[in-house]
């Protein structure tokens, strides 16, 4: 069935199809519409779930943890400062291996106070032990919510998952989507059957302490589970594609990369704009290509190395900065590529902070700079895009 919805509404529809038992949420712009729609669905009984309107994001995640600890399916959503407020509990959730799914509307971090989009919120949580996927459009947002439960609840993974949507650009933009059929989703996503839960017939202790003698082994197991997720992500994507006709290439998507000498790497909704620019430059005979990095954790190291190994120059465009160093995505990308024998020259473009627009012209400008670098011109390794003041 076709529907004309915003990115937030697509997420809510995806959540309904995934049949969570409990939604615990606190509203925060630009995530609000997700939880508003879900509360309406619970009210009109089109979604059979408990809706907990809690007093803060910290409580939202704590409640979701309680839900998951009795073996039920939990959903919550947040953004920006709300995500940071949840941060403490996020580590409990991932350490306890509760397969909670959360939507995050990517939004700038204060101060200056801003409700507009960049990706500093979720990127600052890369080490929280959560799987992180970044989507390009409303359809992918909906599809990924459904996939997220299947990935997170897999016995070899049992790791919480965060689905990231760019604030406003994606959360508030209306698009035509395909709404999957509930019976088919039920077939794809069976009811949760978690082993990490309280059980009256098999009493267990949850979330205990360990001495230094055993603590590291738990962290090792958590790490292995996150690495296991790579294979599961590929399998779930394939199965989803076979059933619903939409494949997302697993951890990383390539666009016109086969013979490309110059590559641009993007995360999230900016990819859509970059595709248009790549098409234009291709028409002009430039050998350029695009990499859409979908997952930041687990990080698709081998896949990225494979795609980039033939290119001469690679630029990373991202909407964040790790103050005093470079972009967080760039740090991860350059770490992966440094293990290649013939690594391409790599450059970092930081932009879009606090909702600053990144236009087609900006992206074309970036790619032309990368082509210059390919032709031997010296360019800055890390640079800000579209600063409005002279520096």
């Amino acid at each position, binding site marked *: 069935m076709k529907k004309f919805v915003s990115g937030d509404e697509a997420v809510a529809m995806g959540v309904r199809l995934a049949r969570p038992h409990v939604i615990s949420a606190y509203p925060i712009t630009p995530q609000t519409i997700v939880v508003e729609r879900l509360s309406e669905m619970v009210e009109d009984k089109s979604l059979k779930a408990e809706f907990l309107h809690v007093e803060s994001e910290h409580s939202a995640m704590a409640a979701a943890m309680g839900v998951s600890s009795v073996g039920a399916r939990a959903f919550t959503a947040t953004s920006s400062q709300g995500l940071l407020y949840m941060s403490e509990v996020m580590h409990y959730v991932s*350490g*306890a*291996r*509760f397969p909670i799914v959360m939507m995050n509307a990517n939004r700038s971090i204060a101060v200056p106070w801003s409700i507009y989009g960049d990706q500093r919120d979720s990127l600052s949580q890369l080490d929280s032990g959560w799987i992180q996927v970044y989507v390009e459009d409303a359809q992918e947002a909906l599809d990924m919510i459904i996939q997220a439960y299947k990935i997170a609840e897999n016995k070899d993974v*049992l790791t919480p998952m965060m689905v990231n949507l760019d604030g406003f650009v994606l959360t508030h933009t209306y698009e035509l989507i395909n709404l999957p059929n509930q019976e088919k989703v039920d077939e794809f996503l069976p009811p949760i059957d978690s*082993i*990490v*839960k309280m059980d009256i017939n*098999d*009493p*267990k*202790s*949850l*979330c*205990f*302490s*360990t*001495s230094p*003698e*055993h603590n590291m*082994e*738990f962290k*090792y*197991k*958590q790490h292995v589970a996150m690495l296991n997720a790579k294979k599961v992500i590929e399998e779930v994507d394939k199965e989803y594609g076979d059933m619903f006709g939409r494949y997302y290439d697993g951890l990383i998507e390539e666009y016109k990369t086969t013979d490309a000498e110059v590559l641009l790497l993007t995360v999230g909704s900016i990819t859509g704009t970059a595709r248009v620019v790549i098409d234009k430059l291709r028409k002009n005979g430039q050998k350029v290509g695009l990499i859409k990095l979908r997952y930041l954790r687990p990080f698709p190291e081998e896949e990225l190395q494979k795609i980039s190994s033939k290119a001469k120059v690679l630029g990373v465009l991202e909407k964040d900065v790790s103050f005093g160093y470079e972009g967080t995505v760039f740090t991860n990308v350059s770490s992966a590529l440094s293990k290649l024998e013939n690594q391409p020259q790599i450059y970092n473009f930081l932009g879009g902070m606090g909702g600053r627009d990144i236009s087609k012209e900006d992206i074309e400008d970036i790619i032309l700079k990368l082509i210059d670098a390919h032709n031997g011109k010296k360019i800055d390794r890390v640079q800000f895009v579209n600063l409005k003041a002279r520096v």
Partner: protein
Amino acid sequence: MNYKENRPKIIEFKNPEHIDDFPVGTTVPSGQLVKKNSGWRTFKPVINKDVCVNCLNCYIFCPDGVIYKSENKVDVDYDFCKGCGVCANECRVNAITMVKEGEE
């Protein structure tokens, strides 16, 4: 029934050797005896049984629940006492003294 018989059965703690012996996340069958964790204690509470009036105030206040009723008034499970001194502070008849580890 005596208090000892009334206690839940404890599953013996087997030291894990292979990574698969560790549970998934922090979820294990209840009743498992964890390893003692009092290694960091510098002071330990010593109860003077002659002074103690068996009011159980310390039993109520101990944040780790390691004070227990015994035939001989109250006792401390030193395997799990962290040496915080809350019991000594709460005892109204000063029956508890905090003694430096190794100096008793």
